[in-house]
Structure formats: structure tokens, C-alpha cells
């Protein structure tokens, strides 16, 4: 008997874009029933490679073998016919359609919603991914949406399932459930390509791994035999940087106080806030964990002043500021780093010195109401030097910077305004490992100078690294913050699933006993 053919074999795949080489001579193979990790940082070329396999992007050169036969996949429909299913990082779901309608759209079969709904229920229950086929997608939690994507793939009897960063939006418990499902699929002979940059997940789940950096394969490994440190070396080319949290010795007094803040969202897809109370003291970082869409956007708007609320609901250093707009709050020493860097944190087409003006004009960049451009430029230059922003200078357009460097510039700009309170949303979203460590250390150092910092993030590990206290925002309600030493991923994960209030156990699919 001959050795089994790999399900999928890639040989020397290359893909060039005008400015970057996304994939350079990439080869890998996946056996039937194998869970194979593609490990790499943001921008390492993982997603491009998967899109090539799925037929959404065409490779410049290279070959693809499917069950030993050479194939060219021209489009996703053809990939699906071969038995390739893909769960996207940014979901490809239609919000206003129901679950079963979303699934019907990708199936090549006679249109029968009623019959399909029954099958959706069957398959979702068989694999422990409970779903109501008739709910509209916009009313689902992010974890449930991912189930829709997975069930959608499963209904096509895939031989190869590609998952692109599937756990970035899941609670730790939901991740465990997903892993069970994936192991079960693998035991039934489905090959799985698992894309991630989370080392411990890959170690616990995957049979083998291909590690990519800068579009090239830098190594193959059996994750079980490696340590996170050795994997990290292959992934980023050096040791994983660690942050240090020195103790704080300054005076402790409340800087931000939120008192019974309730806010009805006027977006039909939004979440209303219920009775949110919170205190952030000088010299500490408070982290708010939770999955986006649980009121994060609404809370941030209410705190930054983009939405004004009751005067007495938000206090800054003893002053009621709930009724003030964003500009007036900034005048009083509140700074805000939004999640969207391009378009909200910075104007993409404007150079950095003009972007510095957006919030920095309070630092004497005007004279007689006119802009003092020389001062803005000096400010931008100083920010670039102090926060290690890699760019061509203060004249570089914001959109020309990488995510990490632009984030360093925006955070730096706000720090230079000498704030009393800094509010940061997803500080390291889409930022590479090196810049992430730098940003986290910067926030830690800033807090130790007596600034109060509130961080809202989906990355639990990040919050555990930098926060002094951690609270969870779920379904518009905020849990009481716990000191980091007393919090653990397990309990925070349960709170993220909404278990600290009655009912609403949708995320894990289990009601509390």
C-alpha cells in the first residue's frame, strides 16, 4: 500500500502586490484529518495564502495539488466544489438576513429554506454549535456568528476547512468548545488549516505547524514538541518581549467616576448601557474586557463625549462633565485613543503634523486664532522621536504608516498633551508584536506618573498584562472591577459570556446549573 496522498499540497506559491511581496515561495502540505497551523504575525502573508487556496486571490506562480491532482482554483465557488470551506476573520455574513438565508446563499442546491432550516438545526446540534436558524444575524453575538460560518461550511461536507484567526472574538470557554468541534471534525477525516498568532492555542490544538514571517516560510514544527518561546523565535525572529509593571507610589484619588450611566443606543444593531458605574484612580490602569458589540462603542462614546449624557453620570477629577462635548472634556484633561486609527484617530490623507494639530492645538499651536504650523511640526517631530515612530518625517501621510507606527504616533500625541485621564480602545489591535509591547510599556509608564488610564480591549492576555484592575462589559452591563491578582481568565471569560447577570448564557450554549 502506498503512503496516503496529502489532501492539499502547495508548491512554491508566490504572490506580489505593487508594494509588498505577500507570499514568497511558500510550500506546505496537509494530510487528511490533520490540524495544521499557519503561524505568523499580522502581515506575514497568512491571509493572502488562504485566499489563494480559497480562490479569492490568484497566485502569480506556484502549483496546487488536491488529493494528488494538480488544480487551479479560479474562484470561491470552485473551491467549495472541491470541498474547501473557509471561515473568515471578518465574517462574510449578511446582517439583515436570517441564519438559514445566509447559509442558503452559499449552497449549490435547490432553494428550500424550510428543509434547510431542519438540516441546519441537525448539523449544528451534532457538532455542539447550537443555532436558531430563523434569527437574523444582527441579533447574534459574535460567537454565534462564527457558529453560523462554521455550520455553513459543514453543510457543504468539506474535506478541508480553513479558519482565519477564529478565536480573536471568542471567550476562553467558547474557544474550548470550538477546539472540541475541530478535533471531532479532524477525527472524521476533515483536514483543518488553522491560522493564528496565538502560540498557546496552536500548541494545544494543532498536529503540525508552518511558520511564516514576511511572506516566507521560516520553519515547520510539531507544536507539541516546542515551547511558546521557540515558536515565537520562529515567528518574530527574536524573543517575545515582556512588559514590566513597576509599583505606583504617588497619591491615589479618583480621576474618572462613572455613576449609574444608562444610555439607550439609537443604532438598531447597537447595545444599550445599563447602570454602568466605574472608578479609575490616578496611577492605575483599569481594563475593561468583553467582546465588541456588548456596549463598548456606546460606553466609549459616552466617556469621550461624542455622546453627551446626564451631567452627573460622568465625573472627571471631581467635576461633573457628563453634559460636556468631546472638545470641552479634552480641555479638562481627558484624552481618547479610538479603536479606528484611520478615519477617527487620524485623518488618513493628512500629514502627521496636521494630524497632531487635531488634538494638540490646545498646546499653544495657535496665535490670534491662526495656526502656528511651525509649532505643530515641532510637536510632531518630538512625538516621532520620543515614541519611536518609524516614518519619513512629520510630512508623511497618516495612511502611509503601518498600524503599529500610526498607533504609536496617536498614543504619543495624546500623552504629550499631559492628560489626567487617558481612554484607549483596542490599543494593539492589528499591531505587530514588537510595537504592541512598546505600546503596553508606554501605557504602564504613563500610569505610574499619576495618570488614570482606562483600556477597553478584546485581548484578554493584554489586559492581564497591563491592568491593575479588570472589569467585564457584557450585554451593556459592567461587572465590578477585580484586582488583577484575584482575576483569572476562566472567571473573566464566564463574565464575558454574560453570566454575572441572570439569563443570557447564549455565548457558551450552556445555561448555568
Amino acid at each position: 500500500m502506498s503512503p496516503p496522498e496529502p489532501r492539499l499540497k502547495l508548491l512554491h506559491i508566490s504572490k506580489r502586490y505593487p508594494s509588498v511581496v505577500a507570499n514568497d515561495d511558500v510550500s506546505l502540505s496537509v494530510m487528511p484529518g490533520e490540524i495544521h497551523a499557519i503561524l505568523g504575525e499580522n502581515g506575514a502573508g497568512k491571509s493572502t495564502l488562504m485566499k489563494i487556496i480559497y480562490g479569492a486571490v490568484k497566485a502569480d506562480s506556484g502549483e496546487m495539488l488536491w488529493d494528488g491532482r494538480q488544480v487551479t482554483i479560479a474562484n470561491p465557488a470552485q473551491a467549495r466544489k472541491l470541498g474547501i470551506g473557509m471561515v473568515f476573520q471578518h465574517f462574510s455574513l449578511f446582517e439583515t438576513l436570517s441564519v438559514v438565508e445566509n447559509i442558503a446563499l452559499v449552497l449549490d442546491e435547490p432553494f428550500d429554506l424550510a428543509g434547510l432550516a431542519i438540516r441546519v438545526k441537525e448539523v449544528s446540534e451534532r457538532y455542539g454549535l447550537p443555532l436558531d436558524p430563523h434569527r437574523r444575524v444582527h441579533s447574534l453575538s459574535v460567537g454565534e456568528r462564527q457558529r453560523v460560518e462554521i455550520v455553513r461550511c459543514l453543510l457543504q461536507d468539506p474535506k478541508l476547512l480553513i479558519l482565519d484567526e477564529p478565536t480573536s472574538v471568542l471567550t476562553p470557554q467558547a474557544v474550548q468548545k470550538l477546539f472540541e468541534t475541530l478535533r471531532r471534525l479532524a477525527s472524521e477525516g476533515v483536514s483543518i488549516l488553522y491560522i493564528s498568532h496565538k502560540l498557546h492555542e496552536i500548541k494545544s490544538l494543532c498536529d503540525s505547524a508552518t511558520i511564516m514571517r514576511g511572506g516566507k516560510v521560516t520553519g515547520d514544527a510539531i507544536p507539541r514538541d516546542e515551547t511558546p518561546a521557540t515558536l515565537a523565535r520562529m515567528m518574530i525572529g527574536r524573543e517575545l518581549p515582556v512588559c514590566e509593571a513597576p509599583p505606583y507610589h504617588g497619591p491615589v484619588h479618583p480621576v474618572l467616576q462613572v455613576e449609574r450611566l444608562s444610555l439607550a443606543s439609537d443604532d438598531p444593531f447597537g447595545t444599550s448601557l445599563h447602570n454602568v458605574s466605574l472608578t479609575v484612580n490616578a496611577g492605575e490602569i483599569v481594563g475593561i474586557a468583553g467582546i465588541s458589540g456588548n456596549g463598548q462603542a456606546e460606553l466609549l462614546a459616552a466617556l469621550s463625549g461624542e455622546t453627551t449624557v446626564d451631567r452627573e453620570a460622568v465625573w472627571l477629577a471631581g467635576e461633573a462633565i457628563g453634559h460636556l462635548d468631546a472638545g470641552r472634556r479634552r480641555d479638562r484633561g481627558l484624552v481618547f485613543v479610538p479603536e479606528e486609527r484611520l478615519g477617527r484617530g487620524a485623518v488618513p490623507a493628512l500629514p502627521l503634523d496636521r494630524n497632531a494639530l487635531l488634538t494638540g492645538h490646545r498646546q499653544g499651536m495657535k496665535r490670534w486664532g491662526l495656526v502656528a504650523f511651525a509649532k505643530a511640526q515641532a510637536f510632531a517631530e518630538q512625538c516621532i522621536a520620543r515614541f519611536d515612530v518609524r516614518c519619513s518625517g512629520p510630512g508623511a501621510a497618516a495612511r502611509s504608516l503601518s498600524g503599529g507606527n500610526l498607533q504609536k504616533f496617536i498614543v504619543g500625541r495624546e500623552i504629550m498633551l499631559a492628560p489626567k485621564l487617558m481612554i484607549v480602545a483596542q490599543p494593539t489591535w492589528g499591531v505587530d508584536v514588537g510595537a504592541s509591547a512598546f505600546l503596553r510599556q508606554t501605557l504602564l509608564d504613563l500610569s505610574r506618573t499619576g495618570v488614570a488610564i482606562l483600556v477597553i480591549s478584546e485581548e484578554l492576555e493584554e489586559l492581564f498584562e497591563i491592568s491593575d484592575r479588570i472589569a467585564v462589559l457584557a450585554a451593556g452591563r459592567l461587572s465590578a472591577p477585580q484586582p488583577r491578582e484575584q482575576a483569572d481568565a476562566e472567571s473573566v471569560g464566564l463574565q464575558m459570556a454574560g453570566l454575572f447577570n441572570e439569563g443570557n448564557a447564549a455565548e457558551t450554549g450552556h445555561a448555568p446549573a
Partner: protein
Amino acid sequence: MLDYLPLILAGTLAAATPLIFAGLGELVAERSGVINLGVEGMMLIGAIAGFAAAAETGHGVAIGLPAGALAGAAAAAVFGFFALSLAANQAACGLALTIFGIGLSAFIGQHYVSYSLPGLQPIAIPLLSDIPLLGPALFKQDWVVYLSLVAFALVAWTLAKTRLGLLLKAVGEAPDAAHAIGYPVIAIRYGAVIFGGAMAGIAGAYLSTVYTPLWVQNMSAGRGWIAVALVVFATWKPTRLMLGAYLFGFVTILQFHAQGLGIEVPVQLLAALPYLATIVVLVLISRDRKLLQLNLPASLGKPFLP
């Protein structure tokens, strides 16, 4: 007043018919994420094409409506080339199409200014048309009016019950996602836009060959704009669109009769009444912002670049 009712109702159905065709077409286009402000222009192009075809061949409406549909579809295809293939601004392209349609129809129409066409005889539906009062009003109409009801049923059924309808919604909702799962977004949008053009063309041809079977410059008189407004205020739902169209038709006929009765109100004001009443009522029923947002095709007006 009761004597007038059958007359008014009968007129309502006919007056609403062009709005139904044009509105349903625009509704389909907007469901796919394309807002075509050229409805007024496409109606006029359809009107003159239908009128010219009917007048030159002597076959009347039977040739006029298809000719109008073809001309409207061709105009929509030109719009599609700019707005879809070249991803130009949809609002600007639509406005340009309207201005172009007004000019083109006036230019071709010069030759037909003194012409008139025979129009259509109503067809009485046996039994139903014998119902007292309402029977002759609702079931003694020309066949294009019945066709508009068939068109409504087809569009409503397609949108609600078929894969094609789902696909249209999906493309209008999230073209990137539709592209990612392998659907030809641009081709689907072309189809929807051209369907919208054909329907606007039929609406125009109905005006010029049946409703007032003679050529008058700019004879659509803003009905294309009302159709665009109807679609939005109907929150992209065919049933509500029908209600809006009939309301417009009803007030149109009502004010005609009011003029005939010699009510002491300036004629211009009365003539503006249907437009005003339709908009006011639609604004009132679509005040619910959540309803609007839930049904709004999320990508409406945004060009798609694969």
C-alpha cells in the same frame, strides 16, 4: 359624492400605474445597493421611444410598451457602465441621466408634437366587474393596469421567496461578503439596474401611449422623482410601495375632480397636492428610524470595487 367614487377609484388605478412600474424597478435596483436617480430621465426616454414606436408602426401599445422597456433598459445600461464598471458617483450619474433624458426626449419629440394615439380600451373582467359601485371601478381597466399588478406580485414573490431575491438583498447589504463567497456583485447589480431601467421605460411608455396618448414635452412631470421617494419611504418593501402609489393616484384624481367642481383654490396648488400628500404620508409612516435602518440596503450608493 358617492356617484363620483367609481370614477375616482377607476382613475386612481390608472394614475398609480406608472408609479408602480417605475417604483418597483427602482426598488429592485436599490435592493442591490444601487441608487439610480435617473428614473425621471429613463421614464421620458421610455415615453418617447414607446410613443415613436407606436406612432411609426401603427401597432399601438403592443409595440409601444416593449419599445419603451428596451429604451429604458439601454439608458440604464449606460448609467450602469459609469456607476458600476467605472465606479463613478451614483448620485451624479443618475442626475446626469435625468437631465440627458429630458433633453433627448424633447429633441426626438419635436416630430410628434401634434400626434395623438388611439390609447386602449378597458377590459372588463367577467363577474367581478358586475359588483355594484366597486366592480366597474376596479375591474374594468386597460390591460396594462392588470399587468402592473402582475409585476407587483412577481417582484414581491421574487424578493421574498426565491434565491434571486435573497441574492439581491445580500449584494445590497454587504457586497464584500457576497464577493468573498463567490458571487459576481457587479453583474448582479447590472441586472438589477437594467431591470429598473426597463420598468421605468414601461412606466414612461404607459404615460405616452395609454394614460394621455399624445406627446407632451416633459410629460412624466416629476413622477420619476416621486417613484424614487416612494422606494425610500416604503422602506424598500413592495407592498408599502403599492400603497404609496395608490395614494398618489387617488389624490391626483381627487384634485382633478376638485378642479372640475370649481373649488376656489388655485389650480397650481391643487396640482401640487398629490406630490405633497404622498410625501407627507410616507414620511409619517416611515418615521421609525430603526425600521428604516433595518431595511436600508447597507451599501446603497456606495460603489463596489472588487
